[in-house]
């Protein structure tokens, strides 16, 4: 299902937690996480292994085994705490909310020491110094600094420091990717001109690729720290001690060298001085709605454009598919049937990935908008074809016979007798699909489309107000889909009055 539902669920859980907070049923700060970890003998650390090299990723030689410098680091840290480490897979841009929900004990996954993160959760002292690196295609010249990127399509990882840096300088045509592999792939497919990413990622994925190069020197160094829930003060202290110990006995250096990410910058780890961060003012996006609503509405416009165009494609392509399936000669009708079955039997997500990332490898390069419309449209075409088929087959055979007996051709029979009657049968399921499309369209954020749910996700990530924004976003979705269902009811009533 879509991000939207996942996030709504996160949101409702947040609501519950809030309730317990206010009522005081659960004294959240009574037990420290450290005691719990030691009791169960297991440190649960949250990370995203999807495209996660060199941090944590499946060993190419032994894919069931995870490796990475953070994987080794987690083992080393756990050993210092006297326990074992176990990784918990979680989408990277959702790590902070997942930590707060208690899915795992710590975040150890390139989480930057930024004021935003430190307001929300507690962060350990740094264990790694990263920098930003611009990556371009080998033949590209001149894009060596951030200001060179203005006006260019540039890929970044969603809610990364790279994204924030480019948003601050402004004027960059930003494309938000859910992972690092996808952005580099689009760079090679010439959909974007550059990617700004953390240096370790660039070292692992971009440097070995002959088609890509590092453009300019690394800049904007920063620190990765371990994310801990605010109330787990003992755990935080223990982790800080462990990091100091691992630095002192050169375990860190050994691990980083093993994965090729050791550089002279790591010496700065010693210089780190914790800054006091002003406690987070809780943002109420509902109270400040004039600031947020327009941003959400802009996302909603994209959602509407996508849904309407994709549905138009689905309605027309579905008709074509069903006509071929029901009336064409042998090999063609089989193809139409196969199309319906294959499309319905495979996930939309995979279809989008194939369209967007797969097609460029055979020389067909669609931009994200076209790929989104094509993906959604062709996917829904299969269900529309099935709706039509049910509608057409619901028309009694006598209708066709009467038309044929009057001398109509097959096509005239279809056009003047069968389809007009099938239309009435088909309107309710097609409208349902249209309303479902509004919500399903949120899935196209995986191919860098910024639509309503993606805007919600990005705003929620920066304000941490999942509830207020969630209510606003849900309200917009409802305001879009409810009129559609009213219209369908009206149309259905209008078309069927002559039947009885």
């Amino acid at each position, binding site marked *: 299902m879509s991000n939207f539902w996942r996030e709504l669920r996160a949101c409702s859980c947040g609501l519950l937690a809030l309730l317990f907070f206010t009522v005081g049923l659960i004294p959240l700060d009574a037990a420290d996480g450290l005691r719990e970890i030691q009791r169960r003998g297991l440190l649960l650390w949250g990370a995203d292994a999807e495209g996660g090299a060199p941090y944590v990723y499946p060993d190419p030689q032994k894919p069931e085994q995870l490796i990475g410098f953070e994987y080794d680091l987690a083992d080393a840290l756990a050993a210092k705490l006297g326990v074992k480490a176990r990784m918990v897979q979680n989408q990277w841009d959702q790590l902070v909310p997942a930590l707060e929900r208690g899915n795992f004990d710590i975040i150890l996954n390139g989480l930057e020491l930024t004021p935003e993160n430190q307001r929300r959760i507690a962060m350990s002292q740094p264990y790694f110094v990263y920098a930003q690196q611009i990556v371009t295609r080998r033949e590209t010249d001149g894009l060596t600094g951030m200001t060179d990127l203005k006006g260019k399509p540039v890929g970044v990882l969603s809610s990364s420091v790279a994204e924030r840096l480019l948003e601050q300088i402004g004027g960059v045509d930003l494309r938000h990717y859910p992972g690092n592999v996808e952005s580099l792939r689009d760079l090679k497919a010439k959909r974007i001109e550059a990617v700004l990413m953390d240096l370790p990622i660039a070292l692992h994925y971009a440097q070995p690729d002959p088609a890509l190069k590092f453009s300019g020197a690394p800049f904007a160094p920063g620190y990765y720290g371990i994310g801990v829930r605010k109330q787990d003060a003992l755990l935080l202290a223990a982790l800080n001690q462990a990091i100091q110990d691992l630095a002192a006995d050169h375990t860190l250096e050994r691990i980083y060298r093993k994965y090729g990410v050791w550089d002279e910058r790591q010496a700065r780890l010693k210089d780190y001085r914790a800054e006091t961060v002003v406690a987070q003012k809780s943002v109420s996006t509902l109270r400040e709605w004039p600031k947020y609503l327009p941003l959400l509405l802009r996302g909603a416009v994209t959602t509407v454009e996508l849904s309407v165009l994709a549905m138009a494609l689905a309605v027309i392509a579905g008709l074509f598919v069903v006509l071929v399936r029901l009336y064409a000669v042998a090999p063609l009708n089989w193809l139409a049937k196969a199309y319906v079955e294959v499309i319905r039997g495979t996930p939309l997500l995979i279809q989008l990935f194939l369209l967007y990332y797969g097609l460029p490898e055979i020389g067909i390069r669609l931009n994200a908008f076209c790929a989104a419309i094509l993906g959604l449209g062709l996917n829904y075409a299969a269900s529309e074809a099935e709706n039509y088929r049910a509608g057409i087959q619901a028309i009694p055979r006598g*209708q066709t*016979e*009467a038309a044929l007996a*009057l*001398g*109509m051709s097959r096509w005239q029979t279809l056009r003047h007798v069968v389809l007009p009657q099938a239309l*009435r049968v088909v309107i309710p399921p097609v409208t349902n699909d249209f309303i479902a499309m509004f919500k399903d369209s949120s899935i196209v954020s995986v191919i860098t489309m910024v639509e309503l749910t993606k805007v919600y996700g990005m705003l929620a990530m920066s304000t941490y107000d999942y509830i207020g924004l969630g209510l606003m976003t849900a309200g917009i979705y409802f305001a879009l889909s409810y009129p559609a269902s009213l219209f369908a009811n009206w149309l259905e009533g209008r078309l069927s009055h*002559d*039947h009885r």
Partner: protein
Amino acid sequence: MITVENLVKSYNSTRVLHGVCHAQQRGEAVVLIGPSGCGKSTFLRCLNQLETPDSGRITIDGVTIDCGHPPGTNHERELQRQLRLRAGMVFQAFNLFPHLTALENIVAAPTVVKGLPRSEAEARARELLGKVGLEGRAQAYPAQLSGGQQQRVAIARALAMEPQVMLFDEPTSALDPELKDEVLRVMRQLAEEGMTMLVVTHEMQFARDIADRVLFFEGGRVAESGTPEQIFSAPQQERTREFLRKATVR
């Protein structure tokens, strides 16, 4: 007007027509009678190609089709269409188009198939509605009409294509007794006007009244044929006698 030679039709392995032959003059009204499942409806449906016969040859008003396979080429399809244009069909279940008014039901085929201008088609449709006694119901939808009225619209709809032959497939079987008469009256009038008609029916009195010739169908063959007097008063075959006895008792 109609010539049928050796028409054979099977469903899967069951043969329902065993080489039926039939010849009919222009203006002749022929009634098919016989027990259920004897093949008379199938015979009618083969005539305008709603069923594809296994073999045989059908000629209607100079259009000849050699049967044996569904039309494959454009020429064969055009031939089939020409045949259907010459033979109007009235169904047991009326089969009016429920999404169209009575008038639109009649106008549809002439405008779509023949490209007749709408105004002309409508004028002709109103004329036909008058002929079947329904001038007031032009704007009614089929669901708003009684069965008898629907069947009369269906007859008008078939007539609008100006067929040379009218095929009636048990046109009153789905009607209550009091509604049958209004349909039979229209058919009787058509016969009197000299329309070439081929009627499958269980209405024996009607057959006796209007038929120039009666065919008794039995087991996929024409078992007996003759004038109404011959068939109804002096049937030659034992089967015919038995059928008529049952039919009149009922």
